[in-house]
C-alpha cells in the first residue's frame, strides 16, 4: 500500500522542481484508495438511478422538466473553473510562488462556494414548488445524488481551507498535501461532470 517514493524528500518542497518523472502517483496512495472507492460508490448510485429510470420512464421525463438546465450548466462551468484554479495553485506551489498559489486557491474556493450557494438556491426553489425528497422516484434520486455530491463539495471546501492555512503558515508548505487536496477537489469536479447530464440532460 505504501509509496515507493521517499516520503521525506517529497514532503519538503524544492522550489522550481516539477514532477517531471513519470510513474508517480499524484498526491499519495491514500487519497487514491478514497477516490477509487468513491468512483465505485457513485457508479452504484448511477446504476440505481438508471434502473429506476427504466422502471418509471415517463415520470422521469416529465419530472426532469422541472429542473433548470441552464443553471446546472452554469454550475458545471463554475466547478470547471475552480478545478483550473486549484490545478494552477498546485503548479504555483511547486514553483515556490506561495503567495500566488494562495491566491489561486482562494479563487478556486470562491468558485466552490458559489456552487454551494447556487445549489442552495436551486434546492430551495424546488422545495418552494413542493418538490421534495419524497415527491417521486426522480426527485428522490435528484436530492440524493446532488446532496451526496454537495456533501463532498462541502468537505472539499474544508480541505481547501486546510490547504490555505498550509500555504499561509510562513514556512514552506508540504507540496504533497497540496496534491492530495487538489486530487480530492478534481474528483468532486469529474463526478459532477457525469451527474450533470445524468440528471439534467438525459431525455
Amino acid at each position, binding site marked *: 500500500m505504501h509509496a515507493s517514493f521517499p516520503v521525506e524528500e517529497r514532503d519538503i518542497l524544492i522550489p522550481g522542481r516539477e514532477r517531471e518523472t513519470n510513474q508517480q502517483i*499524484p498526491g499519495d496512495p491514500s487519497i487514491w484508495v478514497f477516490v477509487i472507492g468513491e468512483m465505485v460508490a457513485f457508479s452504484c448510485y448511477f446504476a440505481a438511478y438508471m434502473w429506476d429510470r427504466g422502471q418509471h420512464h415517463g415520470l422521469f421525463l416529465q419530472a426532469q422538466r422541472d429542473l433548470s438546465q441552464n443553471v446546472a450548466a452554469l454550475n458545471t462551468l463554475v466547478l470547471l473553473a475552480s478545478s483550473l484554479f486549484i490545478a494552477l495553485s498546485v503548479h504555483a506551489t511547486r514553483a515556490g510562488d506561495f503567495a*500566488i498559489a494562495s491566491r489561486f486557491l482562494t479563487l478556486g474556493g470562491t468558485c466552490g462556494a458559489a456552487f454551494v450557494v447556487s445549489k442552495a438556491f436551486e434546492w430551495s426553489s424546488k422545495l418552494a414548488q413542493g418538490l421534495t425528497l419524497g415527491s417521486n422516484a426522480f426527485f428522490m434520486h435528484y436530492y440524493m445524488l446532488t446532496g451526496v455530491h454537495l456533501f463532498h463539495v462541502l468537505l472539499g471546501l474544508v480541505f481547501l481551507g486546510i490547504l490555505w492555512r498550509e500555504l499561509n503558515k510562513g514556512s514552506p508548505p508540504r507540496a504533497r498535501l497540496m496534491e492530495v487536496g487538489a486530487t480530492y477537489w478534481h474528483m468532486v469536479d469529474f463526478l459532477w461532470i457525469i451527474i450533470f447530464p445524468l440528471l439534467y440532460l438525459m431525455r
Partner: protein
Amino acid sequence: MVLYFRSTLTYVWLLLSALTIFIWWLGTRSGTGSREINASGAVVVVFFFACVKARLVIQKFMEVSRAPTWLRVTCDSWLALTFGMIVSFYFLGR
C-alpha cells in the same frame, strides 16, 4: 499570476468549457421543441463527451497521465464501464 495561465491547463479548461456548452446545447434541444433532435442519439453523444470531459480532468488536472499504469487503467476502465452502463441501461429501459 497571469503567467501561470500560459499553460496547457488553460487550454484544457477552455476545451472542457466548450464541451460543456456543447452538451448543454445538444441536451436541452433533443427530444423537445420543433427542431427535433433524435433523443437517443443525443444521449449517446452527450454521455460520450461527458466521459471525455471526465477523462480530461482525470488525465490533465489530476495528473494521472503521468501516473503508474495500473492507475491509468483503473481510471479509464471506470470511465468505460460507467459509459457502457449508463448507455445500455438507457436503451434497455426505453
